[in-house]
């Protein structure tokens, strides 16, 4: 039997047992989809959270002139402002406190916000206040209304962009941000599945029967590939269904190269999985019982969580920060942050190429290292195997594969 046949057989077993024979695959797919749909729909249901819609209360006659200017300027800035008229200032304060109003203007002299007002809204209202005051002053000075209009609301200055504008950047960003969450969930979930699978084989001693037929490296490779395929299939199902739902509900508009974004997410999932999974396999190989796995997998979990936070920061703060640029070349973080940077147009082609190169080299290094540790540890039951011992016995074993 060729090496590849043993890998194929073990990979096929993982795939069949985990998808066809195990209901938890279907359940976890449905749960993830439900969460995704919730993420898409919840912001639509909670309209007040939309950063482009505000309710502003105008109290007293002196506040009224601000209203017109606000709505007009707001529209120019792509912000919709609904004006309300609460009668006494106390009612306005109560409404702000309850969150019914985002801001109240009291007698044209004071702004009341619950805490820190939205920056954009606040600027807008301040500008409106200035414009209203200027209008009054000009009116009382006898300037004709047409001139006032021309002075206070000149036609907007045209914008000349030095670099092409990506109209779809927002949609792509949304897709990529959701993708980072999905990637993180899939990576941590399926890497842990690999670790648990290794411990299962070890604790049930089935590994001894298996290793009488195939070499450790075949078993390890088959498991990683099989479990990875399950994760990839699930990711593809979730990605496609999620995208269809998001587009159908108008949560996002489908950018023309959405396929490219999804493809890059799947590619980076594979790279991230290849990087992390073999290390998780070692975490499983050095223990003999499922309960002990929590301890050995913790450092890897922490590494993954830290990487996720770096990527998450980039999804909030933009993909062009120093941290984001440095992370491009850090193998633990790159798989999580690159889909974002690529979708946002923040990564230069050379950065993508260099990141892929660093990723591939480190994957080879990690897999070679992990395969040896796995070989050295997989048959040692009882106490937790020290990595140094696994490393040394890993070297003694290669003759087992002499074929």
């Amino acid at each position: 039997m060729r090496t590849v046949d043993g890998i194929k057989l073990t990979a096929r077993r993982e795939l069949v047992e985990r998808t066809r024979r195990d209901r938890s695959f279907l359940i976890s797919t449905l749960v993830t989809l439900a969460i995704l749909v919730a993420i898409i729909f919840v912001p639509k249901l909670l309209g007040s959270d939309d950063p482009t819609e505000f309710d502003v209360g105008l109290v007293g006659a002196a506040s009224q002139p601000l209203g017109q200017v606000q709505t007009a300027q707001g529209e120019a800035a792509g912000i919709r402002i609904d004006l309300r008229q609460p009668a006494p200032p106390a009612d306005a304060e109560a409404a702000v406190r309850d969150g019914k109003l985002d801001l109240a203007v009291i007698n044209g002299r004071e702004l009341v916000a619950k805490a820190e007002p939205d920056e954009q809204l606040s600027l807008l209202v301040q500008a409106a206040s200035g414009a209203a005051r200027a209008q009054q002053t000009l009116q009382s000075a006898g300037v004709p209304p047409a001139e006032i209009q021309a002075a206070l609301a000149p036609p907007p200055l045209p914008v000349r962009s030095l670099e092409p504008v990506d109209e779809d950047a927002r949609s792509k960003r949304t897709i990529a941000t959701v993708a980072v969450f999905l990637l993180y969930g899939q990576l941590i979930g399926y890497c842990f599945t690999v670790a648990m699978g290794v411990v299962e084989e070890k604790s049930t001693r089935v590994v001894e029967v298996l290793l009488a037929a195939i070499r450790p490296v075949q078993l390890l490779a088959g498991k990683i590939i099989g479990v990875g395929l399950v994760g990839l299939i699930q990711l593809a199902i979730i990605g496609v269904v999620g995208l269809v739902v998001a587009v159908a509900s108008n949560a996002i508009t489908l950018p023309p190269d959405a396929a490219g974004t999804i493809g890059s997410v799947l590619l980076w999932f594979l790279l991230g999985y290849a990087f992390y999974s073999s290390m998780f396999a070692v975490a499983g190989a050095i223990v003999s019982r499922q309960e002990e796995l929590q301890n050995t997998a913790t450092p890897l979990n922490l590494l993954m969580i830290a990487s996720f936070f770096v990527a998450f920061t980039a999804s909030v703060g933009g993909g062009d920060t120093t941290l984001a640029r440095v992370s491009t070349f850090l193998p633990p973080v790159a798989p999580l942050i690159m889909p974002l940077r690529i979708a946002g147009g923040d990564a230069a082609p050379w950065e993508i190429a260099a990141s892929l190169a660093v990723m591939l080299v480190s994957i080879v290094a990690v897999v070679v290292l992990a395969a040896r540790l796995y070989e050295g540890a997989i048959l040692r039951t009882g106490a937790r195997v020290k990595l140094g011992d696994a490393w040394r016995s890993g070297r003694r074993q290669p003759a087992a594969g002499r074929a």
Partner: protein
Amino acid sequence: MLELQGLTRRYGEVVALDNLSFTVREGQMFGFVGPNGAGKTTTMRIVLGVLEPDRGEVRWRGRPVDAETRRRFGYMPEERGLYPKMRVRDQLEYFARLHGLSATDAERAAGYWIERLGVAERADDRVEQLSLGNQQRVQLAAALVHNPEVLVLDEPFSGLDPVGVDVLAQVLADRAADGIPVIFSSHQLELVERLCEAVAIINRGRLVAAGPVEELRAAGGERRYQVEVADAGPDWVNSLDGVTLLEKQNGRVVLAVEGDEQRVLDAARAAGRVTLFSAVQPSLAQLFRQAVQE
């Protein structure tokens, strides 16, 4: 012939196997016995390639065993190993394919052994749903499903009820009759004595004795006699050199005798009326105790 030549294996400071050699012929039922921790499991793991020896090698039909040859060996480890959540039939087909059978052959072989070992009704259940006895049958089927050239079984009889023991013994005898060397370890020495043509006894990683059971008995050095002298105590034995009193019961004694036994008979007749004088075949258990104590 399966030849184990000079197998040595250390675990850190502990010497698990020390220059162990013995040979198993094709078609031979071969018992592998020794106290706990003697190195039986280590030996079997080395034969199956699950473990590498520090020195020595295993040869099958005159050639060193490699990974390709080992895939035609069948192995039942002492710590039973099956996927608990996998279905019996799927599992057996999987093992058959790992050992190189085609998909159709694997299906046929799994079906045959499921029938033969009496687990047909549970073929589509998960292994964890089976009783321990049935799990053991499945484990045996996993060792047999690829029609191996060599069978190595670590404690195959432990935990089986008498019916299970008979089924297993019959299956193993059939395999041996087909010309396959069948090696198994067991602490049930009466069973080993009944089933096996030849045995190897090991202790602390070293071979103490190996060969056909008859030869081991003959090579025992001292022979044993059971003597009954009417109307006399066992005191007549005391005056004899090279004779050790092993047991005494009423007027009957069991003696270990070195050299000529006729002088013992003479002494017995001098002591009284001899009603019984017979050679005793040492059981495997006795050979074992003797071997291990030395």
